């Protein structure tokens, strides 16, 4: 089930950003038992590299990622760590 959620996040980000590099890690196991994990939603760590972030500030990049994952944030994602880079910043 966790693999499915990770795939959903990955598919969603692929579709929105055509990233040159994309890494989605499920870190839910690190937070089992903590209050935020009680509703079953997970903790994920996303590293995404795309030229769509060029000329965009940090806030805007994170908002773009949150926007793409809006539905999953409600249903499956409790916490999300985001590293959003352009290819030249890698």
């Amino acid at each position, binding site marked *: 089930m966790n693999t499915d959620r990770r795939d959903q996040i990955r598919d969603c980000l692929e579709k929105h950003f055509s990233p040159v590099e994309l890494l989605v890690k499920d870190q839910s196991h690190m937070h089992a038992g903590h209050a*935020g994990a009680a509703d079953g939603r997970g903790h994920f760590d996303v590293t995404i590299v795309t030229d769509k972030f060029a000329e965009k500030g*940090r*806030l805007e990049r*994170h*908002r773009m990622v949150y926007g793409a994952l*809006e539905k999953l944030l409600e249903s499956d994602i409790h916490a999300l760590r985001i590293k959003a880079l352009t290819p030249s910043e890698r």
Partner: protein
Amino acid sequence: MDINDRIREQLDNNSVLLYMKGTPDFPQCGFSGQTVAALNAIGNPYATVNILEDPEIREGMKVYSNWPTFPQLYVNGELVGGCDIIVEMYHSGELQSLIKAVGDEEPGAESA
């Protein structure tokens, strides 16, 4: 008072304001804890709001800021970012410059 008025009042009264889960002494979430650690390391005063104790602020902030997660750090009424951005800016030194600039402008900021 309307929720957006409450938020604006909090932001007007506190130049450095962290909306977080829990308190600086007892953060209820690792991300809030890391953000507090960065602010404590800088050492300038800051105010916090525990969103777990105020569901209206918790929901209102997400809309006000167009940002779905906590913590959220505001400096001079502007959203600076969540945990990832704050920690990144701390490591690059940008956060120190930003917060120390506020301290220089307002020598009385600790009363916030």
